[in-house]
């Protein structure tokens, strides 16, 4: 698994085959650029780690934006409450419209996160990322690319500032994971 992670998928034979499939399906005639490779990857749905893939597919299954909000709010409720004294600035996500803190910990070589926010939707987004990333190795977490955000189907439900907030949360979590390497 981890060996495959280190090799970009599009260099494997299976990946090339998939790429060709997609190319034919979408009748793309232009040469593949790095950007289109990303698109292909999103279309083929190969997202790792598995926990992330399952979060993405569970969100994709919800057709209605209001239901996706509902799902986020439910996820927010699943988070373990964080004690106020742990909410210090080093855990605070910068550039988010609401206040949000993400606190990492390492257990048996795997990274786990806790999060808190004053806004429930933001807390739901943090919970989503925690569900997607918690319990994976620092290597796996740091190799996640943010492309999956587009696959969540949350775009119409999130203002750009919240999407940026989600990106900022992800990059903080990845930096935290890297610090365990």
């Amino acid at each position: 698994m981890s060996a495959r992670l280190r090799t970009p998928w599009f260099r494997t034979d299976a990946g090339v085959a998939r790429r060709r499939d997609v190319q034919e399906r979408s009748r793309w005639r232009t040469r593949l650029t790095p950007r289109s490779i990303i698109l292909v990857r999103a279309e083929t749905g190969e997202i790792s780690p598995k926990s992330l893939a399952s979060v993405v597919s569970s969100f994709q299954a919800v057709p209605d934006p209001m239901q996706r909000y509902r799902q986020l709010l439910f996820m927010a409720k699943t988070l373990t409450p964080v004690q106020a004294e742990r909410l210090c600035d080093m855990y605070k996500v910068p550039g988010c419209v609401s206040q949000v803190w993400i606190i990492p910990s390492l257990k048996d070589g795997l990274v786990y996160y806790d999060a808190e926010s004053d806004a429930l939707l933001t807390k739901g987004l943090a919970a989503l990322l925690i569900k997607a990333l918690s319990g994976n190795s620092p290597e796996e977490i740091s190799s996640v690319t943010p492309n999956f955000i587009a696959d969540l189907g949350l775009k119409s439900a999130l203002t750009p500032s919240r999407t940026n907030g989600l990106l900022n949360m992800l990059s903080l979590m990845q930096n935290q994971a890297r610090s365990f390497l």
Partner: protein
Amino acid sequence: MPAGTSSLSALASHARGHHRRGRCNNWRGRSARVEASASTERRPTTLGEETRKDFPILDQKTESGAQLVYLDNAATSQKPNEVVDAHMFYYKDYNSNVHRGVHYLSSKATDAYELSRRKIARFVNAKTDREIVFTRNASEAINLVANTWGTKYLEAGDEIILSVLEHHSNIVPWQLLAERTGCVLKFVKLTKDTQELDIAELRSLVNEKTKLITTAHVSNVTGGEAPVAEIVELARGVGAKVLLDACQSLPHMPVDVQSLGADWIVGSGHKMCGPTGIGFLWGRLDVLETMPPWMGGGEMIQDVFLERSTYAEPPGRFEAGTPAIAEAIALGAACDYLSRIGMDRIHEYEVEIGRYLYEKLSQVPKVTIYGPPPSRGRASLCAFNVEGIHANDLCTLLDQAGIACRSGHHCTQPLHRYLDVPGSARASLYFYNVREDVDAFIDALRSTIEFFSEFE
């Protein structure tokens, strides 16, 4: 299905079926209904209904499929067709630099630019159009006063009195000035009961060291109006100057600089039906004449020699470089548009619809509205919080129902700290809003609160 499904479906159907149910503010939809019922009941059309056609931008659906209800007018107003046209015609018909050439287009552009200055002067009843300085926005106008008058006349120990409700634009330039000159900033708090500027505290702060009193004419959060006559009287008593941030008053009520008695007011074009990138400073001519230039460049000079320059008289002295010509001309068109309706009429209508908003909103459980009650006089906006729901969450879901509201600190962090809340949501009206907009907002707000109550 869980019990909360009803609220979800209510909100979703609100978003989707808002228009179909005929509850919407879609102008064509309404006209048809009004005509249909005309035989039985004919009520006089409101200003909102009359002017709606001038703002086609309002007739659209948002990404979620809901009819747009624009209630973020305190952040920026929409622009009527004729303002958009004035902007466009400048570029299409007579784009040319002003005050420069002798050719036809240049003189046409210069005429239009200077005519716009006269329109603004008339709009605020200035004694002469030389009292109007075009700036990029109100913030620049305040910075201009701080960097010219402030730098020249203020010394260490001098005092500037502001209030805790100021917009950041009317705090930060004075903080920068205080760092440069050593002058001291003093902040007036609000009255406990009505959250209005505490004039008694202001009176106690004024002394012979006071050189400037500055405040928002109308607050963008509390909606309260400053007691300008008393402020001016207190300032005159010690020879201090008065600057009013009129961004939230100019679009909504008659502003007469001669009767106000302030030394400067600043205005923002885009909040009064004009374009962004243009604002203005009005200053009493005798005061403007004592102010040194701030930014150097073309236009603001009289003669330039290699070792020194002499400067133009106001307002040219303060307008370095090629100005925002199209924007200035379009702001003039906005003044024409507003004047044609009549600022008295706009104010009268907004008092009525603002009271309607306040009353409807205060009936919603768990809502706290900031600022004075309508009986004390307040702008047609409500900044508020719903107990247990973050303002950002609230406005995100209101957006799903097509309601454009602002959430956050509205560039007034000190005020929110003073009120002891992290932020607030704000619904702000303008003359083209109608009661149905308020109704749609209240409906969506109730559904949103119900939606969140599932997760308590």
